[in-house]
């Protein structure tokens, strides 16, 4: 059965491109427009991987990770940040709240797939 990935980003084009890349490789993709929407959808349906942006209206990516990690269901589910933020301080914050990895935008579809395969197979 195809694995499900939750893509959280306020940019419609990024969501589309992430979904396009992942669906092309056989994954199922659920899209969310910000942290709140992402949290709600993650709780509604279990996903195998969360891919989230950092800067979003409402709830940002780091807060989303904190909230997900506080949910027993998502304590060990891989969560990748996909953001324009590239500073070490932000990455350290991500590591501290429980992010599994950090991908700096713009992403290369091949590299994204490689990382996703490495993380969830």
């Amino acid at each position, binding site marked *: 059965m195809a694995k499900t990935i939750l893509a959280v*980003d306020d*940019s*419609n*084009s*990024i969501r*589309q*491109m992430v979904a*396009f*890349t992942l669906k*092309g490789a056989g994954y199922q993709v659920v899209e969310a427009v910000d942290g709140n929407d992402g949290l709600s959808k993650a709780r509604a349906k279990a996903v195998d991987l969360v891919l989230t942006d*950092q*800067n979003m209206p409402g709830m940002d990516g780091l807060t989303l990770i904190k909230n997900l990690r506080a949910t027993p269901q998502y304590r060990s589910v891989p969560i990748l940040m996909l*953001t*324009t*933020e*590239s*500073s070490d301080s932000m*990455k350290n914050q*991500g*590591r501290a709240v429980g*992010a*599994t*990895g*950090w*991908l*700096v*935008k*713009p*992403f*290369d*579809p*091949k*590299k994204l797939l490689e*990382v996703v395969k*490495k*993380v969830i197979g």
Partner: protein
Amino acid sequence: MGNRQLFIAVSGITLSGCLLIIAGSSWVEWLALAIPSVAWIIFAWRESYKSPLGCSAEDLAELNRLTDEFHALLGEFARHFAIQLDGFKSEFSQIRHLLRDAVNRLTDSFKNMEAMTRKQESLITPIVARQQISKDNESKTSIVSFVNYASDTMSNYVETIVRVSMYSMKIVERMDDVYHTVSAILTDLDAVDNIAKQTNLLALNAAIEAVRAGEAGRGFAVVADEVRKLSHHSSQFSAQIRRHVAESQGVLRNAMAASAELSSHDMNFALQAKINLQQMIQEIKEIDRKMQMSISEISRIGNEIQNYVNSAVTALQFEDMASQLITHLDRRVLGLSALLDGVHNIGASTGESRTTTYHEKIGRFHNAIFQAVNLLSTTEHQAVSQQKMHAGDVELF
């Protein structure tokens, strides 16, 4: 009246008093001293109407007029600047929408292009794989295998035809031998006919001699008659054989002609067919080679298109970055707007005394700067540091 004016007035009066005391009782001398004192008092009185900066009332009025004009200009400046800032906001919003729309359309186009490429690849891949399997397993399903098989079959067929033709020629030769043998039989039958004629003649002579011998030759006459009958039968039988042999010879001649024509005709046809087929096979092999090259090329191009689509997907993410940068610029514009409000308020009239208004305006300006600095402090963190659209780093924790 300010402190300075009071000091000048008091010092003038004090100086006049001192001069009066020193001058003594003479009214002329008193007058001589009183006049400068009064002049000093008048001077001090005039001084009391001057501004704190040492301006005259006219200067002060001019200064106030200029201040009002300056405030009006600041107001005008702020109004125009606000219009431009509103323009910035509106155009940023327009850029954001245009980018979003363009990128959505481009994304759809690239998605469709990629889908078509995948479909094309899915159609080509089995053909390429089949070609590869055919090459590896020497299967009879590939065009090359089919052509080779057809070529071998045709060669065998032509060889068989040639062999048959050769055998036909040999048969014609054998039939020719038989024909000559049959001719020899006919010659031999002539000899048999002669023998029969001579036997008949002998029987006739024997019959004559038997008649001449009388009673004693009666038996001999019977034998002679039988011999003559035998001779006659022999002639008939020989004629019958001659007829049958002649018929066989005719059939044999026809068969020899037909066989010779057949073997000659088939051989030419088969040899020509073999040459034609070999040419066709070469052409088919060339077509197959080119087709395989084209299929490989299409497959390679498909992979290249995939790479280009990946590159486009990477580049199209500029909309997200541009959008974030525009949001950042929006914040800067908000900060500038707050500053502008402060400038605008300098020129606003509250209906109170000028001094109070100045203090209040300066306070409002300070406040506006403080608010603007707070707003602008949010722009210190720049989320987008990328200068080019190269794929970003990947780090797994």
